[in-house]
């Protein structure tokens, strides 16, 4: 018990006069804050992108594409094949009608607001059931496009990110003039990056005849995917790839997410090493500034162990303050920050928000604590070993 009391007393003394050493302490704090800030900012891109892609995917919607296509853009299905899918088992039926949307997916050049440069914006032709095969998509402004007319509804994120997509305005792609008649919300999912129109109109405008690229169907339930898969993949007239929407979008998210992590984690480790050097520097100064204090304590009978602990606690506490500061700045500045990037897999733009999530902040704080512990350890050993007589003489 005595040793605990000692440790507590020395640590408390140490922390109470911390403000006197504010300059060198501040260096340690800011160093750690920078690490946590950069870590949370970079990784929040991966988190946000993943969230946008995964929100779109449900287990009870299937997406059907030509076998071997890695994305909708590469796929192609004929009208006959769509009819086969319509009558396949496992598809939810509303009365006699299957809940299904055969879709065409092309990209158009629209200028990005942030760079004023052309970007590949996804332009999707959908059927009437498009809102039923997707969860949580609803029109929030204007009206639905009329079938057969050159009318577009745009996703909320697309409208915010790209130029000229306001409801009521019109756009020219090639030789066709399109009216933007409404805007839809999809709960922040990837659908919000898209422009939608009647699939028949889009087929005509892009000379695609009567062909489609993907078919989305609502499944009877989450296990019905197996029936649908078995039926379609064995049908020699079609043999497509059948995926749940969730599987499809996780695949689409993977490349970029991995890339950001591949850069982000080594970057953080390197920065953390740099911060350890900064913290070591601060703590060595702190120990030398407290030289006479430590020597006096030792002369009074306090043991070297309590001095050691007090120094490590000081360092860890400084790092923790830095970590909290960095995390708070990352959250305030980056959380919800909207950007748009080209997803290599779909070759089209995805608009997403940076997501500074609690687990990122916790990871950042762990990093801070590790930096603090390392940064305090060696100076603490020096403090504990300080020769008492010599230190007192230096007064």
């Amino acid at each position, binding site marked *: 018990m005595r040793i605990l009391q000692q440790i507590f007393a020395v640590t408390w003394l140490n922390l109470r006069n911390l403000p006197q050493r504010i300059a060198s302490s501040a260096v340690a704090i800011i*160093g750690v804050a920078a690490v946590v800030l*950069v870590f949370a900012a*970079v990784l929040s891109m991966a988190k946000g992108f993943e969230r946008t892609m995964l929100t779109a995917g449900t287990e009870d919607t299937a997406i059907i594409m030509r*076998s071997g296509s890695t994305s909708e853009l590469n796929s192609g299905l004929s009208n006959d094949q769509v009819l086969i899918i319509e009558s396949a088992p496992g598809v939810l039926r509303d009365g006699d009608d299957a809940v299904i949307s055969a879709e065409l997916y092309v*990209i158009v050049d629209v200028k990005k607001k942030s*760079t004023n440069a*052309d*970007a590949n914006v996804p332009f999707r032709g959908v059927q009437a059931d498009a809102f039923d095969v997707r969860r949580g998509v609803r029109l929030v402004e204007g009206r639905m496009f009329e079938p057969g007319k050159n009318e577009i509804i745009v996703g909320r994120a697309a409208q915010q990110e790209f130029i000229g997509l306001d409801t009521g305005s019109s756009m020219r792609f090639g*030789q066709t003039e399109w009216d933007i008649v409404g805007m839809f919300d999809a709960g922040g999912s990837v659908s919000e990056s898209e422009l939608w129109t009647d699939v028949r109109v889009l087929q005509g405008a892009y000379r695609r005849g009567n062909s489609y690229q993907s078919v989305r169907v609502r499944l009877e339930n989450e296990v019905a995917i197996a029936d649908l898969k078995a039926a379609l993949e064995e049908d020699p007239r079609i043999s497509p790839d059948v995926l749940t929407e969730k599987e499809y979008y996780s695949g689409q998210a993977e490349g970029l997410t991995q890339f950001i992590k591949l850069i982000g984690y080594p970057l953080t480790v390197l920065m953390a090493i740099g911060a350890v050097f900064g913290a070591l520097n601060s703590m060595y100064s702190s120990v030398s500034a407290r030289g006479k204090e430590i020597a006096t304590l030792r002369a009074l009978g306090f043991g070297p162990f309590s001095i050691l602990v007090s120094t490590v606690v000081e360092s860890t506490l400084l790092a923790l303050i830095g970590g909290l500061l960095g995390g708070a700045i990352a959250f305030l500045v980056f959380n919800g920050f909207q950007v748009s990037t*080209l997803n290599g897999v779909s070759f089209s733009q995805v608009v997403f928000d940076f997501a500074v999530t609690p687990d990122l902040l916790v990871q950042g704080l762990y990093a801070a604590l590790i930096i603090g512990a390392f940064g305090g350890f060696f100076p603490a050993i020096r403090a504990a070993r300080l020769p008492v007589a010599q230190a007192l003489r230096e007064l």
Partner: protein
Amino acid sequence: MKYFRLIWKNAWRKKIRTSLTILSVFVAFLLYSLLSAIGYAFKGGIDVADAERLIVIDKITLINPLPVSYQNRIAATDGVASVTHASWFGGYYQEPQNQFGQFPVDPESYFAMYPEFNMPEEQLDAWKRNRTGMVVGQELADAYGWKVGDRVPIQATIWTRKDGSRTWEFDLEGIFSTDDPRGSTALMLFHYDYFDEARAFGQGTVGWYILRVTGGADPVQVAKAIDSQFANSPSETKTSTEAAFAKSFMEQFGNIAMIVTLILGAVFFTLLLVSGNTMSQSVRERISELAVLKTLGFGDRSVLGIVLSESILIMLIGGLLGLGLGWIIVQGIARQFAAFLPGVFLSPAAIVIGITLMVGAGILAGMFPAVKAMRLSIIDALARA
């Protein structure tokens, strides 16, 4: 320079502190070199773009194909010296992650258009003779361990063959390289004629055209002449210089430069604090010594110079070591990244900027303590000691 020994001795007065500061600087510049090399890849080879080459794509979007019949009409346009085309194949090798540029091209005109690619004459001839042959860049051959003579299967994601299969097999006939360290060779080329004949759909179209303007012709005027030729046709075109095309494509990824700058900003701000703190501490400890120097007749400017030089010296030692290690690492990872992020390169410009930053940070960090040292009044300082 005559004070170098004095500056050197001063710098190492507290060995641990100076070493730690140098190590922080080292890490900062290691990060700097790695980030600028990756940032360079996101510029998409704008520096290596040929000012006389133009790219012609569909006006609505890059993915819409153009009729193959445009070739002759473009070639006949005033100011066009030569023209070739390429298309997007979009397949992969073994695993869907292994994607890279695969272009069906016309061998003769394509290599004439890109003189920066070097390939042994006999390999080029062998490729021209073999309809199912392909050639790849050195980076790609290294990444997948391919040798001339290998038969390589590529899985198509778009282009099914007429027989319904998705596997296209090619004989590797040649490997090309480039002398320019900034240029990427992570691409694979094969015969357009074979591709067009064997694919199940899309016959008679190409992805984009590449043309060279005649010497002296204004690329902007040539681009206008081509685009107006196809205006109001079902396939309108958009012609831009290679640099503008690369830039607009890379801009699609969003503001990568901003994110890199932000990280570097955070790193340098921290670095300045660490080293500024070191410098002011060491000046504080040395006040009596500085006063003695002044008593001996060192002028204000000399004292200022000595303190500043020490700060710059510390930055340069750490910074150059960091930049050096960064350079070595970049040489190593450039190959590994070649297939999915070609063009990772530490440019001479980045090295110059790096050294400028070292000196600049040294001055900023040392300025305040140096001025303090310069203004030191001998009597006060000695009295305090």
